[in-house]
Structures are given as C-alpha cells and as structure tokens.
C-alpha cells in the first residue's frame, strides 16, 4: 500500500522540476540557438559576397603573389612566379622559426632568472626581481617597438658597423657572421653528430646499469658533451674539412657573404623571449618554492650534496608544478609572435593574413587558414606538453 502511495506522489511532480530533465532541455535549447546563429551568419555572408561579386574558394592560392618578401628561409621566392601558397609556406616557416627559437631562449632565460630570484645573494636577487617586475608590466607590443625602433634601428649604419673580431658585424640591418658552406663529403659531419647522439643515449643507459651493479657514478653529462663535440670534429678532419667558410665582406652598399640575422627577426625574438622569460621565471620560482623546505633538509640530513639534492629531490617535484603553466607560456609566445606585423617581420599573420589578403581580397579564406594554423600548432604544443606532464606526474602515485 505504502509503496503505491509513494509511486503516486512521484507521478504528481512537475517534470520540469526534475534537474535532469531541466539539464537536457537547456542543453537542447543552447544547441538550437548556436546552430541557428551560425547558419544565419553563414547565409548572410554568402549572400553578401555574391552581391559584391567576390568569388570564394581557394583558387587564389595558386595565383602568383606578385610582391617581394623581406625574410625567406629554406625556400626560393620569386615575386613574379611564386604563388600565394608559397607566401603561406614562408609565413608558416618564419612563424615557426621565431616561435621555436623563442621558446628555447625564453625557457633558458626563465629558468636562470627564476633560480636567481631565489638567491640569497641580495644583489643577484634584486637584479632578477627588477627584470621580472619591469618586463612583466610593460605591454609586449611596446617592448617589440622598443627593441626594433629604439635599440636595433639606432645601431650604426652598415658602413660604420660595429665589429667583433674581423668577421662579426653588428649594424642597423642586423647581425652578420661567418657561414659554413658545405662542399663534397660534408655528409659525414651530420652523420657523426647523429652517431654521437645515439652513442650518448647508449652511454647514459650503460652508466645507469653500471651504477645499479657497482654503485660507481659515471660523469654522463661531460662524456656525452665530449662525444657530441669530438665526433663531428673527427669526421671533419677525416674528410679534410669538407666545407668552405663564407665571411661577411663589405660591399658598396651592404655586407655580402656569410649569414645574417635581420633586425626584424632579432627584435621579435628578443622581445618575445625576454617578455615570456619573465613570466617563466615567476613560474619556476613558485614551482621551486612549492617544494617544502623539509625536502631539502631531509636530503641534506642524509648527506646528499646541494647540487644532487636539486637534481634528485627538488627538481622532479618542482617540475610537476612548473609544467602546466609553462605550457600556457609556450602557447602565449607562439600566438604573440603574430605581433610581428608591428615591426614588419614576415610571419604568417603579416604575410598571409596581411599582404595576401589585401592583394586577393579573400578575407575569409586567408583568416581561416591563419587561424587554423595557430590552432594546430597550439594544439600540437599542448599535446606534447601534456604528454610530458603525464610522464613526470605519473611518478607520484
């Protein structure tokens, strides 16, 4: 009897007061609204484009670009024959070049200053503090302009280049330094480098095994460093130095020969890595601080030396705190590289979403491709860092 009564009670409840049913209703409502909005905007755009006679599609990618590009890496570019697809590729390469080198540099700067910020030495500590506070609190765009217009542009003219030794020049068109031009037989050097890297991994594994068996500690770092330097040098000697050096030389208007880094690239690289480095420094500092001092004391009381304590006890724990926010700094750096437009570095935004878009009028396609590119590399970086994070986090439990 009572059970039936309860059933009746349940039946009388207004369905819409059931949170589960409400949740389903609201979810359907939201999806309908979003789909409706997207359909409306898409339709509107298509109608407007048709009215103005703008053809949509990706055919423009195979048309010749018809403009020149300042910085071209790894590719040949000819303003007459190269297409917008080439422009896109150059933009991607340039963005990747500055992002990857920026991530490396920012990480190094960040870890150094993060550790210095923790120093008990008053001067060192304050220098790091001033760097972090000043750099973090000035907009990146302004800093890029500072490096480009206030530092690199006021360097001497080419004719009065500052020189370091006879082969290294600094002027307002960038930095020139000697280049190594491969000749026949050069292949052995990269092969030797590869062999050295493989050998280093083997040495590391062997050293681990030997330590497990005999307890002896092998200086893995120094031996591997030696291998990586010595093997390519030996390879070079065997092949009788299979390269010619190209030194920068003064021409009438410019420096020819050697390699050069353009001021746009340098300004963007410096700006991005110094700016992001300040944030990374704070992340590193807080990560190390997050490991309780008791850990250091326990390690010290066991007779473990300070350097080894950092390596075996502090860093593995600090990294778990450092890696997730570090990932978002890497993403920031990559996305912030689009500020290149402001100082005329030919990245994907300036080239493809800028010049190509203006030339062809294919705004939607250009912007979409550019957005898709940033999205893809951001997701790639995220995936890699998440994988790394999992690897070090798993050690916990």
């Amino acid at each position: 009897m009572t059970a039936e009564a309860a059933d009746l009670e349940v039946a009388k409840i207004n369905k819409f007061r059931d949170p589960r049913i409400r949740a389903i209703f609201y979810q359907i409502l939201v999806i309908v609204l979003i789909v409706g909005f997207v359909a409306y905007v898409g339709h509107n755009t298509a109608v407007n484009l048709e009215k103005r006679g703008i053809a949509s599609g990706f055919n423009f990618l195979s048309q010749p670009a018809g403009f020149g590009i300042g910085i071209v890496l790894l590719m040949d570019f000819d303003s007459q024959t190269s297409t917008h697809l080439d422009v896109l590729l150059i933009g991607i390469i340039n963005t990747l070049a500055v992002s990857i080198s920026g991530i490396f540099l920012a990480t190094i700067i960040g870890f150094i200053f993060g550790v210095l910020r923790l120093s008990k030495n008053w001067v060192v500590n304050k220098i790091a503090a001033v760097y972090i506070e000043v750099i973090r609190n000035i907009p990146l765009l302004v800093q890029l302009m500072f490096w480009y217009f206030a530092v690199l542009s006021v360097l001497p003219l080419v004719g009065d280049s500052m020189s370091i030794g006879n082969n290294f020049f600094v002027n307002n068109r960038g930095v020139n330094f000697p280049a190594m031009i491969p000749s026949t037989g050069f292949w052995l050097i990269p092969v030797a480098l590869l062999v050295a890297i493989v050998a280093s991994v083997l040495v590391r594994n062997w050293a681990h095994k030997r330590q497990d068996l005999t307890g002896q500690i092998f200086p893995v770092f120094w031996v591997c460093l030696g291998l990586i330097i010595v093997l390519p040098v030996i390879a070079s000697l065997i092949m009788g130095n299979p390269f010619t050096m190209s030194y920068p030389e003064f021409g009438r208007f410019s420096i020819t020969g050697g390699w050069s880094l353009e001021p746009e690239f340098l300004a963007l690289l410096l700006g991005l890595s110094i700016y992001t480095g300040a944030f990374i420094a704070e992340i590193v500092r807080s990560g190390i601080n997050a490991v309780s001092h008791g850990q250091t004391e326990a390690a010290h009381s066991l007779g473990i030396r300070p350097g080894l304590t950092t390596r075996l006890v502090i860093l593995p724990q600090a990294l778990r705190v450092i890696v997730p926010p570090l990932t978002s700094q890497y993403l920031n750096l990559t996305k912030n590289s689009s500020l290149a437009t402001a100082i005329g570095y030919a990245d994907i935004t300036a080239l493809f979403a800028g010049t190509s878009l203006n030339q062809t009028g294919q705004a939607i396609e250009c912007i979409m491709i550019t957005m898709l590119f940033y999205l893809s590399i951001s997701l790639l970086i995220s995936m890699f860092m998440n994988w790394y994070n999992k690897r070090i986090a798993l050690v916990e439990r």
Partner: protein
Amino acid sequence: MSEAAMTQTDIDVAIQLIGMHKWYGEFHVLKDINLTVERGEKIVVCGPSGSGKSTMIRCINRLEEHQQGQIIVDGIELTNDVKKIDEIRREVGMVFQHFNLFPHLTVLENCTLAPIWVRKTPKAEAEATAMKFLERVKIPEQAMKYPGQLSGGQQQRVAIARSLCMNPRIMLFDEPTSALDPEMISEVLDTMISLAEEGMTMICVTHEMGFAKTVADRVLFMDAGEIIEQAPPQEFFENPQSERTQLFLSQILHNG
C-alpha cells in the same frame, strides 16, 4: 689529564657541544649550550615550545649554523668546511616531525636514494639493505608504495628506516611523534625503543615522557635557549630541581 685518558674520552664521546651560541638576527636562540653525549647514550630533550630544543639538535648536523662555540661530532669539528659537514651528515641520521619523505619516490627508493648516490652502493645491495630495515620497522610489504599511500605512523617508520640505511652512528629525532594520531604513536615509539636497545646513540626531542622513562639515560630540560636541568629520568621526574622544570612537568603530566 694524561694522553691516554684523552684518547679514551675521545672515542667514547659521540657529540660534544662546548659553549655554543646561536642567534636568529637579534634573537638569542641558544645560550651557552654545553653538552657531552657518550657513545651509546640515549638523551631525551624536553621543554616548552620555542625553547630551542629543535634548533639545538638541528645544529648538530648543520641544518642550522651556530655562531659561537664548538660542536664536535664523532671527533670531527663542525666548521664551514663543506667536506666535514658532509662527513658528519653521513654519520648522523635525522627523523623529522613531518617525516619529510620524498613523495615522488617509492618507499624503497626513498630508502636507497642516499646509499646509491652518497655511499655509491650497488642498487641490488642498497635494496637488500633497505628491505632489511623496512622489515625491522615492520612494513616490508609497503616497499613499492608511495609515501602518500601510507598512514602517518607508517610514514614515520619509513623515515626511520631511510635514515638507518645510511648506517648512522648517531640518530637525532626531532619530535617524531608530534604530528601523529594518538593510535599511531606507539608503533613509532616501539621502533625507537628497539633501536635504543641495540645501543644506538640517540638524541630525541619529544614530549613522550613514557618513552623518556623507559629508554633515556638522561633527560634534558631546556627553556629560553638554555639547558636548565639534566638528570637520569628517575631523578628528573621525581625530584626536579628548578622551578621552571617543576612547572613544566606539572603541566605536561596533567595533560598526559
């Protein structure tokens, strides 16, 4: 004193603090500490919080630096010489109030880390030693777990095993049971008692007066950075000399 007598006392003395002072900035934490601990002696240090008990034993393995006087451990004087500090730390084990196990390593790895990297012991040997000590503290079955998966009492016993793996000649205990739930205190104290019975030189900062009565050769009472009184436990508890000791004991025994 004859030469022979000198060397005789040197061998028998494990720790010697002579006129030791320490300041934190302006604050005078330790005042003229004089203490001689013989080999195999068990000492319990008690006193109100802030009296400098922990600071004193932390000076013995140089987790804190003293500013005046001498500390001689195992015949080695503690100075700024890093090598001497390392030598002493290898011989002196320490157990902390909050265990301070390495959370990113398993129990076994916690125990083998220092033997492998400091004593350069082969891994298999270090693991065998570690298992031996884990068995002694009665938790060999937890060897593959991480510290976060153990109870407080188990963690503290791992911490004791971790110290023992370095084969220390002296053990320092810094309030080893203060952070434990009441039902876990005895398992840690039992471990410490069995260690004491084997003749380990021990200095324990603790408020466990039962432990002091069973194990200690001498009880030290500290207050405001000074050693006020020291006596064998029976004398100390039954007939405390100074007023401050009497007050402290009446408070502690009421609560206990």
